[in-house]
């Protein structure tokens, strides 16, 4: 066709305006063709991994080709149906980023820098030069944010388990943007105070615990990102709640880090519905990282509930992602690290000082032979003691405590010796790192037999997290935190299959007292259980029980002995339903060898139930349990168990698999 036209022109047989019309036609056809190509590209682009992750799209369950973004703020999308349609949203973005109105366009770029840069790199935007200049002029807030962060690298920080608060019992994670430093520091983690923490949390709008629990499960609360100085997180977790902080520094390239910051800015200005189980604090830390580095696979293998320590393990499944690990001891750990540097004699002086509340005791004649460095260590330990014991009061600037602590500070200042860095504080205790822990879910299969010669099989599933006898690495010592336990039994003689135990939670927290600290030990559980009374009748109970008591440790924490008083508020599930309040003591002994590879627990409980509060004819239930565990491999254990109730004994052999 083209050659014909050329021939026609050449022959000058047609008029010039006709030629123009023909050229216009050709151009239009070509344009139309390229538009088709363009559209095809855009559609493909809109289902690319990069776009999916930048907009937080997830494939909808039970649908072949439907998507939904986990972001819930409407301002995050440029198309009104953008939350559900990646293609429409991409089209809207291309259209708007190509808008020739300078201020509209610049505002948009400042709002969504990661999207803009990515679309630009894909060559799908129609750009005019003057807009590039405008962007730099207008993004004042965003650049101020970047300048404030001055990020050099990024870490995922794990805040260890905190049993005193149900929301933090499983730990917590957040991002830390590591700031460029002026100079090389003195200690390995000095000067990290000015780093910034990026935290995802729920904006809790109700103090009613029921609304809190139900709302948290159903996504009623809005989840938002916040950027606050890291030292607030340190004070909150390290000091206020006495939890160790473990930082995993990631290997991101400069481009990936830039994209991460851009994307943090994008989601930082909107909200995502917060689900305690799934889309929680730890989950969305991972989705941020996935958006920044597309070859990461962090959220794909997680179950429908996301446990912070599991997300740390996901980091390690991506080879080469974790560059280094650092450990920041809690106020509690710091105090015991300080005590560990003291000799027995120095410890006794520390105790004497704390007891008499007089740091000037060090000036007594009988201590003149003490080296100055030794006095410094004692006083430093006493300051750590205050910080751990009275942090909440110190924080509220409680005058009583300030007055109590002032002479210690004054005395320490007068000594005019600079404290050395405590080397133990700098050391990383591998056994405390969460990624070294066993899998958080456990599947158990047991074979059992009792004195009456009936044999049974027992299946048990534990959704989370740790049993006191499980391998202890990465988990708190002397603690059981079991959530979602289902236990079935099948009697092999009668082929009778029944539910044996169903627990929403079952917690045992042993905090052995020592010469410096007296703390309670406690237990709590909620669920369904079966008990056997004197006439060997099996009773089904549903309800809650809780115990409070004390524990002591021996042989450098290898053995713990405990005693609790247990209160049970249960309902008897039988034809005549009845309240079954009960009370009684529990005593127990727990010990372990070879770094927790072999552990055992012996416990004995007597509980007296008063059916319908009737005190005349109480029901006494006795139960003794002995369990011996061999944590054979990282994620596999063998167990032997004996349960006794005075009338009958059960013997069980079990295998446990952690995943």
């Amino acid at each position, binding site marked *: 066709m083209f050659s014909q036209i050329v021939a026609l022109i050449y022959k000058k047989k047609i008029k010039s305006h006709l030629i123009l019309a023909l050229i216009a036609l050709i151009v239009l056809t070509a344009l139309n063709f390229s538009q088709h190509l363009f559209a095809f590209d855009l559609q493909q682009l809109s289902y690319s991994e990069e776009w999916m992750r930048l907009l937080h799209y997830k494939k909808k369950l039970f649908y072949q080709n439907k998507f939904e973004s986990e972001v819930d703020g409407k301002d995050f999308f440029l198309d009104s149906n953008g939350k559900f349609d990646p293609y429409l949203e991409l089209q809207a973005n291309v259209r708007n980023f190509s808008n020739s109105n300078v201020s509209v366009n610049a505002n948009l770029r400042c709002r969504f820098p990661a999207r803009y840069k990515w679309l630009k790199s894909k060559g799908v935007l129609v750009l005019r030069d003057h807009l590039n200049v405008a962007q730099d002029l207008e993004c004042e*807030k965003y650049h101020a944010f970047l300048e404030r962060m001055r990020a050099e690298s990024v870490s995922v920080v794990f805040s260890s388990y905190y049993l005193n608060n149900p929301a933090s019992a499983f730990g917590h994670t957040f991002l830390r943007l590591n700031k460029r430093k002026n100079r090389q520091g003195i200690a390995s983690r000095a000067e990290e105070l000015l780093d910034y923490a990026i935290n995802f949390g729920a904006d809790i709008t109700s103090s009613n615990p029921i609304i809190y629990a139900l709302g948290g499960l159903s996504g009623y609360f809005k989840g938002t990102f*916040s950027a606050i100085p890291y030292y607030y997180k340190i004070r909150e977790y390290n000091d206020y709640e006495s939890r160790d902080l473990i930082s995993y520094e990631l290997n991101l390239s400069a481009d990936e880090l830039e994209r991460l910051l851009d994307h943090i800015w994008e989601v930082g200005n909107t909200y995502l519905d917060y689900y305690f189980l799934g889309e929680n604090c730890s989950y969305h830390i991972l989705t941020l990282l996935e958006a920044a580095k597309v070859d990461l696979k962090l959220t794909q293998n997680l179950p429908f509930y996301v446990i912070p320590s599991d997300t740390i393990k996901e980091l390690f499944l991506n080879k080469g992602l974790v560059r280094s690990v650092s450990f920041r001891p809690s106020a509690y750990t710091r105090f015991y690290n300080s005590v560990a540097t003291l000799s027995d004699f120095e410890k006794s002086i520390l105790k004497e000082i704390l007891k008499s509340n007089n740091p000037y005791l060090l000036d007594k004649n009988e201590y003149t032979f003490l080296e100055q460095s030794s006095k410094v260590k004692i006083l430093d330990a006493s300051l750590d003691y205050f910080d751990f014991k009275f942090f909440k009061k110190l924080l509220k600037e409680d005058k009583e405590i300030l007055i109590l602590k002032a002479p210690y500070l004054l005395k320490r200042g007068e000594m005019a010796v600079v404290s050395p860095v405590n080397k133990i504080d700098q050391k990383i205790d591998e056994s405390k790192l969460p990624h070294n822990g066993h899998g958080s879910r456990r599947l158990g299969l047991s074979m059992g037999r009792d004195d009456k010669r009936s044999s049974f099989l027992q299946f048990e599933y534990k959704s989370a997290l740790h049993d006191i006898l499980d391998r202890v690495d990465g988990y708190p010592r002397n603690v059981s935190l079991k959530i979602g336990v289902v236990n079935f039994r099948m009697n092999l003689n009668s082929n009778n299959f029944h539910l044996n135990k169903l627990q929403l939670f079952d917690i045992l927290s042993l905090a052995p007292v020592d010469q410096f600290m007296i703390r309670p030990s406690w237990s709590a559980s909620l669920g369904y259980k079966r008990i056997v009374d004197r006439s060997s009748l099996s009773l089904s109970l549903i309800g809650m029980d809780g115990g409070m008591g004390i524990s002591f440790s021996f042989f450098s924490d290898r053995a713990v002995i405990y005693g609790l008083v247990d209160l049970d508020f249960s309902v008897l599930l039988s034809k005549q339903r009845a309240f079954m309040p009960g009370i009684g003591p529990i005593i127990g002994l727990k010990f372990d060898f070879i770094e927790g590879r072999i552990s055992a627990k012996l416990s004995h409980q007597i509980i007296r139930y008063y059916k319908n509060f009737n005190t005349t004819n109480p029901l006494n239930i006795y139960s003794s349990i002995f369990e011996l565990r061999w944590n054979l491999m990282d994620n596999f254990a063998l167990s032997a168990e004996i349960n006794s109730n005075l009338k009958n004994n059960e013997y069980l052999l079990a295998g446990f698999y952690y995943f």
Partner: protein
Amino acid sequence: MKIFLKFFVILSFSIAANSAEKQFGVGGCGLGSLMMGKDGNQVLAITTNGTGTQTFGISSGTSNCVPDKKIKKKGLSGVSRSEEIKGLVEGNQTATLNDLAKGSGEIIWTISDVYNCEDPLELGEELQKNYKKIVPKVDIDATELSSNIDKVISKSDVLSNSCPNL
């Protein structure tokens, strides 16, 4: 079923009563203000910074104590070094007092970094020497504390040479 319901109601009321007991007001500035709200809701503690009304960039100021107006006017990067120290001291008052008395520690390393000092140990010695001057009374507030630190550092002949950012 009724018995369950009763049980549940009693249980939930007892928890509710327990959590209602721990209410504190939110106000003031510094770490305390962020934490008080948290302490008021021990069970609800998830985040310390759920202001929601401010934009992301602005809520990332040093602490509640640097006024928004100032940040808006000067931009976040416009916060001066002594204001940065003030934010640090406000958020870490307990640790600051400890470090001043010990003559070493993270707060001192950080101040040293902000002022770009050559020798953090020297800074520590100087601050420890002046402990009584910096902390003249027990219930000193963060503003006074940080301005006293500033004064000691800027008046010191030793430090004025070795801390170029002063």
